[in-house]
């Protein structure tokens, strides 16, 4: 197992490097640059800016300098647009925000999603099943960009219970709506995956055996069905967790949380090369990490899997 983990981590390095190279090239291939603006900068002014940010260097050298900065000092460079800040500072400010509402959304989505899914499968074709499926389809077709304005309309404008946005260091009033908006569609997916996987497991031979030897239904479900039914759910949860803790552009924009989610779109539109690379690497690294976690969980849950 340990060799396996070590091997996977070793592969992560070239994977990340490849990610950096491809993103870097794609980013520079897009028309315009960080200093392209409606009123074109005079050539000399542009030259001074490019010299300051090293954009006058050949592309390969920019890339080497960039990678060396990360390797030698964990330095992701300065933001080309938010010039008072470095990429490290931008991530250090925004990531804790998305990590907070993302983890809470994840917990809520898993808790409600799995519960709904399990009960829907146990009471297959009952009103409970239909309700669960109905709710999850409803949540699925209500994406966060629809949820967010509705939530603000109801809880801020009509009821005046919650502030319409902001973060204020993460006080609970400011977290409620982002969490609801972010978690619903994930919750729906988790419920549907859990339900279908659970249905399949409940019809399998080992469950029939368990029932045949007279185990109480509660034990059959908890001890024998739940664990194998979780396998497909877990492979969904790994990437979903990364997606959630790195935030959502819609949630960040609509609730003005100051989170990192908005940086994905912003940095791409602004051609803020360094920030764009920073968030890409962050998500890339987290994805690799949590795919590994998923694989480890697999081995733990399913005794048939050995690395």
């Amino acid at each position, binding site marked *: 197992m340990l060799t396996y983990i070590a091997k996977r981590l070793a592969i992560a390095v070239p994977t990340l490097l490849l990610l950096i190279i491809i993103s870097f090239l794609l980013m520079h291939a897009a028309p315009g*640059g960080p200093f*392209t603006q*409606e009123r*074109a900068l005079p050539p*000399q002014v542009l030259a001074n800016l490019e010299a300051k940010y090293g954009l006058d260097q050949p592309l390969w050298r920019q890339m080497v300098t960039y990678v060396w900065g990360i390797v030698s000092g964990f330095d992701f460079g300065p933001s080309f647009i*938010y*010039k*008072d800040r470095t990429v490290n500072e931008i991530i250090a400010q925004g990531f804790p925000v998305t990590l907070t509402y993302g983890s809470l959304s994840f917990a809520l989505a898993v808790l409600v999603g799995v519960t709904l899914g399990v009960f829907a499968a146990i009471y297959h074709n009952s009103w409970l099943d239909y309700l669960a499926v109905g709710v999850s389809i409803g949540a699925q077709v209500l994406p966060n960009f629809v949820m967010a304005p509705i939530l603000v309309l109801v809880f801020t404008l009509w009821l005046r219970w919650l502030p319409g946005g*902001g973060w204020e260091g993460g006080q609970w009033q400011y977290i409620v709506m982002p969490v609801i908006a972010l978690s619903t569609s994930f919750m729906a997916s988790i419920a549907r995956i859990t339900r279908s996987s659970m249905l399949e497991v409940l019809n399998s031979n080992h469950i029939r055996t368990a029932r045949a030897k007279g185990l109480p239904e509660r034990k059959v479900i908890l001890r024998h069905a739940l664990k194998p039914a979780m396998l497909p759910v877990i492979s969904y949860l790994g990437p979903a967790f990364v997606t959630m803790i790195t935030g959502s552009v819609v949630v960040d924009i609509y609730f003005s*949380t100051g989170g990192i989610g908005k940086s994905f779109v912003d940095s791409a539109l602004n051609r803020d090369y360094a920030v764009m690379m920073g968030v890409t690497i962050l998500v890339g690294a987290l994805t690799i990490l949590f795919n590994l976690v998923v694989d480890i969980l697999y081995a733990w849950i399913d005794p048939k899997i050995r690395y």
Partner: protein
Amino acid sequence: MNKLLLTTILSIGIALPSIAATPQPGETLAENQNYTYWLLDAIKSMDPQINTDVEGSGIMRSLFEGLYNEDQVGSLVPGVATSYELSDDKTTYTFHLRDNAKWSNGDPVTANDFVYAWKRLADPATASEYAWYIELMQIENASEIIAGEKPVDELGVRAIDDQTFEVKITAPLPYFPKMTTHASVFPVNQKVIEAFGDKWTEPGNLVGNGAYVLKEHILGEKVVMEPNPEYWDNEHTILQHVTALTINDNDAALTRYLAGELDRVQIPAGQYPRLKAEYPDEAISVPQSCSYIYMFNLDKAKGPAALQDVRVRKALSYAIDRDIIVNNILQGGQAPSYNWTHAATEGFQMPEIDYATWSQAERTAKAKELLAEAGYGPDNPLNLTLNYNTSEAHKKIAIAVQQFWKGVGVNLTLNNMEWKVHTDKMQNQDFEVARYAWCGDYNEASTYLDLFTSYSGHNNGKFFSEDYDRLMKESKTAADPAPLYEQAEQILADEMPLAPIYQYTKVEMIKPDLRGAGLNNLMQNWYLKDMYRVAN
């Protein structure tokens, strides 16, 4: 420059009263003097020489103070400078600074602070995106310094003594003093910048000379400011706690305004009539110095051949029904436009532009006639492409124009693109017709008209006219440039390198108890120190 030749020919401001927030007779101040307003985007920098955007400039005007400020209608009022003199040859300005101006750390503000800041703006090492502004101000050696051909110390600015700041410019520039209200030429504190380096703009480190100090700055969330007790006129500062909230979605911001979380917000396109009916005291529409146009690409190599023909350009412009665009699409009190300079620009006299006075039916008829003369018609339809950047309002206008042009037999393909791509294509003459807008840097017509000179860096449509260049050059030294500007506009109407569409208004919701927000200032430059809330 021979100092003996210096004559005082202009000396403003000495007799003017202080222009801080002054409640009018009959007004009672409210107990609540907090103010929360909306920012569309995060503030890119708190450094006056680095900041580039309009929203950032609003904050700069609160944290720093330049030589001059603007009053409620945009006229100059003393800031750190109380008066100035201009030499006979109109190229040396001597500004007299007040002796009681202080930085927020208690240091006196001196002429050297301006020298330092202005040199810093020009210095290639600073790499300011607004370095071009000091070139625009025509300060001696600015261009050479930016190009790295001369040392920074040769910039035409010096401190004669602590209270006297001298600026040399290369040619007379009648609106030079107006240009000093721009944030990029605000003074900065050398000691603080050298002590903290890139971190000097953080709350706690930042030292300014404006009426407010920075308390908090969370990128993408908020900026918090409070009065600066060291400010020379602090006794007249009324608002006590000011918060600027970043909300990237205009509709979300409006909802939060309606929920009472904001005191001022922009109204999203098309919603003004509804809000005006519902909140007559809060919804406002006031002129703003920006002009919305479709630019034609006249580049011989890259532009379409059809647009080389002035008859085609005129026909396209005539065929646009501006009234429909402003009344049915934008609905925010915008003015239909038949010229380039914003009509409310100070000192600008609107020329008599022929087609502005015609009815739309007459314009459309004329458009058809011109196109037929140019050889286009049902048998030989004209096909053009319009580039515009992503925005609901731009899209609606583009669709309307597509219909107007279809009416005169022109097929317009709409080409929507992301903003940076749009800009990049325009700047490389990689377009046929392109949506464009320009906002004045200062309240004077040349900020618009200079754009269409052959030597302007922003003339993306590559319109060249010797007469136009000559007029604009003459205007720099003319005692009264207004007639020259009129002639320049007339050339634009005759040659039609652009199709003017509308002139901007600022359409906002603002709490009715707020005063002093400078709504009648065409530049929409407001100063927190002038604002206050009255008791209802």
